[in-house]
């Protein structure tokens, strides 16, 4: 294969960051001079302006506009940059890209994405079944398909406080029926049904970022304990730890599902053991913490995509401390104008 030119989405490095910039940093650390291209859905995404990381950045049509438009956008990027690898970093893109990954490969854009079946296995309304298969506790959860049903379940089946979750995004802890109805309505208006009602599990929140080679082998992982989070629950400070039980869970997850590509296990260590809370089908935004701790999973992913195999898993030290920071940089307004007028930063 030619030298990789990697398209990376999720470059919204904001207060609720996508993983794209962290993925790019990992690749830039591993491969000197690698060509990276930013794929953005908003002219204001900070990644658009990181000229040290991305040789160019393109505004893409929203995935909600369908495959034809998204493919047109990707074709445009490919023809202008030679993009031949794609690492999507946003949940909302994945269903379309997964469905059409063979077509992408035919056009010369290589990926490593889960299958549709794998993607669905870890959806929130099916996660209880997967948790059972891989031998992990899962909080008691009820799926509801309307607000009346939500209220009814809270009266009869699910004690308060409870967590109201959307199938795709958002989760709120609610302490009374009125709050549950309000938050449930809010999530459903944005993301639709079903909603989930889940029993809260008191304990320590642990996260594992991993990479699976599609044959059931874990290619690397790092476990962190979140120490300080934003109001959205995003990492602000965290520490690496060694958790053998969570390591084994990730190995079983890869073995059982033959997962393809990156993933994140979100867990809680409760009084009676480890609970699986969520599985994200992509790198998390904190993936550069793993890279800086010695486990460069974006680089391993690129090896898998381009060569079909990756090096043996790297170990890391427990006790590495990650601190997120806010910072500003000043750039040229021409980039903003180019993005708006030509659809890409360089205006080419």
């Amino acid at each position: 294969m030619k030298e990789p030119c990697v398209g990376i989405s999720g470059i919204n490095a904001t207060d609720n960051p996508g993983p794209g910039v962290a993925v790019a940093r990992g690749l830039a650390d591993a491969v000197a001079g690698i060509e990276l291209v930013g794929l953005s859905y908003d002219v204001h995404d900070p990644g658009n302006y990181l000229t040290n990381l991305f040789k160019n950045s393109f505004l893409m049509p929203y995935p909600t506009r369908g495959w034809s438009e998204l493919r047109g956008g990707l074709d445009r990027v490919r023809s202008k940059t030679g993009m031949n690898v794609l690492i999507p970093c946003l949940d909302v893109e994945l269903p379309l890209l997964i469905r059409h990954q063979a077509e992408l490969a035919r056009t010369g854009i290589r990926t490593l994405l889960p299958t549709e079946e794998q993607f669905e296995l870890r959806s929130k309304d099916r996660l209880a079944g997967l948790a059972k298969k891989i031998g992990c506790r899962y909080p008691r959860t009820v799926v509801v398909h309307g607000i009346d049903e939500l209220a009814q379940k809270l009266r009869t089946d699910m004690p308060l406080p409870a967590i109201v979750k959307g199938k795709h995004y958002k989760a709120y802890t609610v302490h009374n029926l009125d709050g549950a109805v309000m938050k449930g309505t809010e999530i459903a208006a944005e993301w639709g049904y079903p909603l989930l009602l889940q029993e809260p599990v008191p304990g320590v929140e642990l996260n594992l970022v991993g990479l699976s080679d599609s044959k059931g082998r874990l290619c690397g992982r790092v476990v962190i304990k979140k120490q300080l989070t934003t109001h959205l629950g995003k990492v602000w400070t965290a520490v690496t730890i060694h958790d053998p039980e969570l390591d084994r869970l990730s190995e079983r997850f890869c073995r059982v599902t033959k997962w393809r590509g990156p993933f994140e296990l979100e867990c809680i260590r409760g009084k009676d053991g480890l609970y699986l809370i969520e599985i994200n089908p992509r790198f998390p935004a904190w993936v550069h913490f793993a890279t800086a701790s010695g486990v460069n999973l974006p680089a391993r992913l690129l090896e898998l995509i381009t060569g079909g195999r990756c090096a043996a898993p790297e170990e890391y030290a427990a006790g590495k401390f990650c601190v997120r920071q806010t910072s500003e940089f000043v750039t040229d307004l021409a980039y903003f104008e180019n993005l708006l007028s030509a659809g890409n930063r360089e205006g080419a």
Partner: protein
Amino acid sequence: MADIKHWNLSETGMAFDPQTGESFQLNPVAKAIIERLRRGLADEQIAAEVAKKFGVEQERVMTDLLVFKAEIDIIRSAV
């Protein structure tokens, strides 16, 4: 008792449990006790060495040591 053998212990007295991510700031006496517990010394020997190091009575150190070990277990079980 908690598995303190795997704790990372810094020169300044910061103890970090790599399995839970919990960290503790130890005072000098606690640090001296932990160091000796990690070396597998018997309680009596720890009490004798720490008493000598800090110039206090061995019986008092022994009492503190037993309380300290119980507290470590409480901390561990609460994590």
